């Protein structure tokens, strides 16, 4: 038998896992029981964290990486991929998560940023990263640092989908601008967006982002999730929206179905029946600028 050279942690392998999650729902869970409910409902992955965003919002304080014991417990409870969050710029939290064999790291604005000037250099890691973005420039900066997946930032923990919609619309609009621009204009666009020129060229060639782009931040109902798919997202993260609602198991399942069949409105109507109350939430328009998480990171 000839011995093969296995290459691990490559760009293809990292982006590839994100490709496999497309059309799926990734759910925030805070313990193994919730992780099992999520898996049973058909989640493609779970995000292990200590407090869902709405609790972080309500309780305040510094939000950090989760307890490794809790993460390990969740890894043992389910067979789907397990993700976890590290603070923006916190290299060591990310290294710890990598040492725990986590499947994906979310360098997340939901946690309190550890570094106000730099995001993690994600190309240094074998584990793939997902990062939030409000526009194409931000998405391409994160991809330039090595992110294998992008998500809208939205406004986590509010149950208000308006910011996620704003962010995906902005990304789409920026991509359209790149597509319709002449080659000569691309450096100007790169400068304006603050995006790496080479990645602008890639977007021009592909007509889309070079990585998968999910919705996140404020998705609370099956219709919200389907709306984000309609706007061109590849899948959906649901944070507080599931386990802060009346009937998490039923709502989780309904959101999974609405994402898989996002244009089947009869089906969405059917699965939306009798779900009980969605998370109470709060309107983003009434939040103070300093209460918003989306402004964290650059």
């Amino acid at each position, binding site marked *: 038998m000839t011995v093969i050279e296995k290459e691990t942690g490559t760009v293809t392998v990292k982006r590839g*896992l994100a490709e496999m999650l497309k059309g799926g729902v990734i759910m925030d869970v805070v313990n193994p029981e919730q992780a099992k409910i999520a898996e049973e409902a058909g989640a*493609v992955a779970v995000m292990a964290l200590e407090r869902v965003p709405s609790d972080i919002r309500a309780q305040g304080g510094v939000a950090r990486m989760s307890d490794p014991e809790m993460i390990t417990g969740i890894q043992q409870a389910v067979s*789907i991929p397990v993700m976890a969050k590290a603070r923006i710029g916190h290299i060591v939290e990310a290294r710890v998560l990598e040492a725990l064999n986590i499947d994906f790291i979310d360098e997340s604005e939901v946690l309190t940023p550890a570094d106000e000037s730099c995001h993690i250099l994600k190309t240094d890691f074998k584990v793939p990263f997902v990062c939030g973005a409000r526009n194409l420039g931000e998405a391409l900066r994160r991809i330039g640092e090595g992110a294998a997946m992008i998500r809208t930032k939205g406004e986590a923990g509010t149950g208000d989908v308006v910011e996620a919609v704003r962010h995906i619309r902005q990304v789409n609009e920026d991509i359209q601008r790149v597509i319709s621009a002449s080659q000569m204009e691309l450096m100007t666009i790169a400068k304006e967006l603050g995006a790496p020129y080479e990645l602008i060229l890639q977007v021009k060639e592909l007509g889309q982002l070079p990585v998968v782009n999910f919705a996140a931040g404020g998705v609370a109902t099956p219709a919200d999730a389907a709306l984000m798919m309609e706007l061109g997202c590849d899948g959906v993260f649901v944070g507080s929206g599931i386990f802060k609602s009346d009937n998490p198991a039923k709502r989780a399942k309904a959101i999974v179905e609405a994402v898989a069949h996002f244009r*089947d409105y009869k089906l969405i109507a059917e699965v939306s029946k009798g779900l009980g109350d969605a998370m109470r939430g709060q309107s983003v328009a009434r939040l103070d600028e300093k209460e918003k998480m989306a402004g964290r990171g650059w």
Partner: protein
Amino acid sequence: MKIGILALQGAVREHRSVLQKLGAETKDILNPEDLQKIDGLILPGGESTACGKLLVRYNLIEPIAEAGRSGLPIFGTCTGLILLAKHINNSSQYRLGLMDVRVERNAFGRQIDSFETDMSIPVLGDKPFHTVFIRAPYIVQADSNVEILLEYDGKILLAEQNNLLAAAFHPELTKDTRLHEYFLRKVKSAKKYLERGRDF
């Protein structure tokens, strides 16, 4: 030639673009009625637990299994391999159960162990095939009616059983189209045979 792609979740777009590049028509399969008038079916990579549950929820298990038993060519990659298998180690997840093989899920480990490499696959010619394994399964054991097309270190990574083809890796994530071409040849020869009397 029209190829259905199970489109509940996963790497649907990648398979679609490879097939279209090769001149095949594609059709997304979301409901049982979508299975009409297709000449072949691809079960793409995705998350197998989630895919299995959605297959059950939309009553797709029996119609696809029946089409497979009647000779419809089916090509499963990664999750698709798991769905095709009769036996899955330590799992009671939903499956089509068409191939006489036993698979192990996440058999190489977690994402950190996902890898890519060149492998020699004799049926695809002399040039090595670049394979991408992502939290991949493999076939632990296959009955004698299953033809093994790629085996490494005791792990069966590509296998064929009559109209069924299954890969543990993701040919849809690379530019090499030879495995899809191999499947389309299967579809073509099945079509000739099936035109004498069957319609799915």
